[in-house]
């Protein structure tokens, strides 16, 4: 046994006799562990970024429904459409959430507001029918609630769960690449999450991916 190891064992033994004593390795100053412990916001921000990087692409592919398909399904009622295409937590009274893909021309845009948005005409009737939240302030918890692998029971409390919703919205905003200038008249493809409490509720999505369609 090397002297160093002997010292370690002796130390460990001594520690075993001293309640409250614990061997804590010195953190590697280069690693994340050297940083101060993360608070709720930081942990949820990290988790949100990981979700976007690692889970969202496959999840969207599995769950996305085309706007036209969803519109047709909704004609048979929200529960029918939801059962076929939606995601809903198990608790009573929870609204349906959808991962939607739509393409349309911008008929209205507000880039000045903190809660910036644009309205697309996704069914070609010349009327706006789909609001895309551009942020930085993005409202609601549609994105979190549309991800069926995020289970409330797995979180410490509502506060932590709400912070994750907020962090996901922040990621959605940060990852948007919007062209400069006036958006009205341009066409976009958007994939995003929305909550639909009733059939006649307006469609408002949190964008997961947004790209301009070449004119």
């Amino acid at each position, binding site marked *: 046994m090397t002297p160093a190891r002997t010292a370690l064992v002796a130390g460990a033994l001594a520690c075993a006799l001293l309640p409250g004593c614990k061997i804590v390795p010195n953190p590697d100053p280069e690693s994340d562990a050297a940083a101060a412990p993360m608070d709720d916001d930081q942990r949820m921000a990290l988790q949100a970024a990981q979700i976007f990087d690692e889970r969202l692409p496959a999840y969207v592919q599995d769950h996305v429904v085309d706007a036209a398909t969803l519109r047709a399904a909704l004609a048979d009622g929200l529960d029918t459409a939801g059962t076929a295409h939606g995601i809903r*937590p*198990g*608790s*009573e*009274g*929870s*609204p349906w959430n959808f991962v939607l893909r739509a393409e349309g021309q911008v008929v209205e845009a507000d880039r000045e507001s*903190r*809660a910036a948005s644009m309205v697309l005409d996704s069914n070609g009737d010349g009327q706006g029918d789909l609001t895309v939240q551009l942020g930085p*302030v993005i*409202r*609601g*918890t549609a994105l979190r609630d549309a991800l069926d692998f995020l*289970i*409330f*029971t*797995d*979180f*410490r*409390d*509502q*506060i932590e*769960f*709400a*912070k994750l*919703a*907020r962090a996901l919205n922040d990621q959605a905003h940060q990852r948007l690449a919007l062209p400069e200038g006036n958006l009205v008249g341009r066409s976009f493809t958007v994939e995003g999450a929305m909550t639909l*409490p009733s059939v006649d509720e307006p469609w408002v999505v949190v964008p997961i991916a947004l790209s301009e369609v070449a004119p």
Partner: protein
Amino acid sequence: MKLNRRLMISAFGLSLAIAMPGFASAEGLIAIITPSHDNPFFKAEAVGAEARAKELGYETVVMVHDDDPNKQSELFGTAIARGAAAIILDNAGADATVAAVQRAKDAGIPSFLIDREIKESGIAVSQIVSNNYQGAQLGAEEFVKLMGEEGQYAELLGREADTNAGIRSSGYHDIIDQYPDMEMVAQQTANWSQTEAYTVMETMLQAHPDIKGVISGNDTMAMGAWAALEAAGRTDVMVVGFDGSNDVRDSIKAGGIKATVLQPAYRQAQLAVEQADQYLKTGSTGVEEKQLMDCVLINGDNAEQLETFALSE
């Protein structure tokens, strides 16, 4: 003194437990434990749970812990001593309650929590809470609209030990803080209490006479604040509450308080009993432990439909 009282309660519980079988119902006893019924919200929970339990063939015992974790612990002792089949609980603190629920679990009694969470999962069978974040955002959006997106306002916070106080406040601010002309000049706890809110509101008014709105973490505090504002002749101040009580409904209809957010408290309590019943009969509730129930904005448009924490169609 305290020990004596506890012994007496246990002795009482034991004698009841022995006496019970004579008139015990087929399905067993459900203990319903909530904060004080002084707040109609908790009364509605107790009434809702009791009614559903009786419909399902259970005997019930209704008890209140007055937000005192020690008293709550004694009540758990009583429930255990009486051999309750299940406990329906609106708890006395997210941290302090973990041990009590664990004690019941160790005694083979499942707990079904409503309204307030505890900071552990895997101990209670169900934790059914209102979607306070969603509800608070609804209330805040209405508040901002009422304020014309600008002006000084005050916030009344709930009891700090209760997660619901924190989550509602963060829901409020996630909306209100987006408006640069909304200025919070005072933020203080009134511990969910009507009388405390009255006093706090009086002091806030003296310090900030230009206040234009008050957003409150619950309805009893909103009622207290409104009474103080009325007494000071400041009925121009916009007050928004949270809960959906009949008191606030009546105030809205009379042009007093402007809005509140309905928590489906009555249904929530009934649902907890239904899950308890299913769990006792099948060993599973069939749903996740922690469940969120969405809230609904109440203002002049729909106040008429509100009755005892439920909205008629």
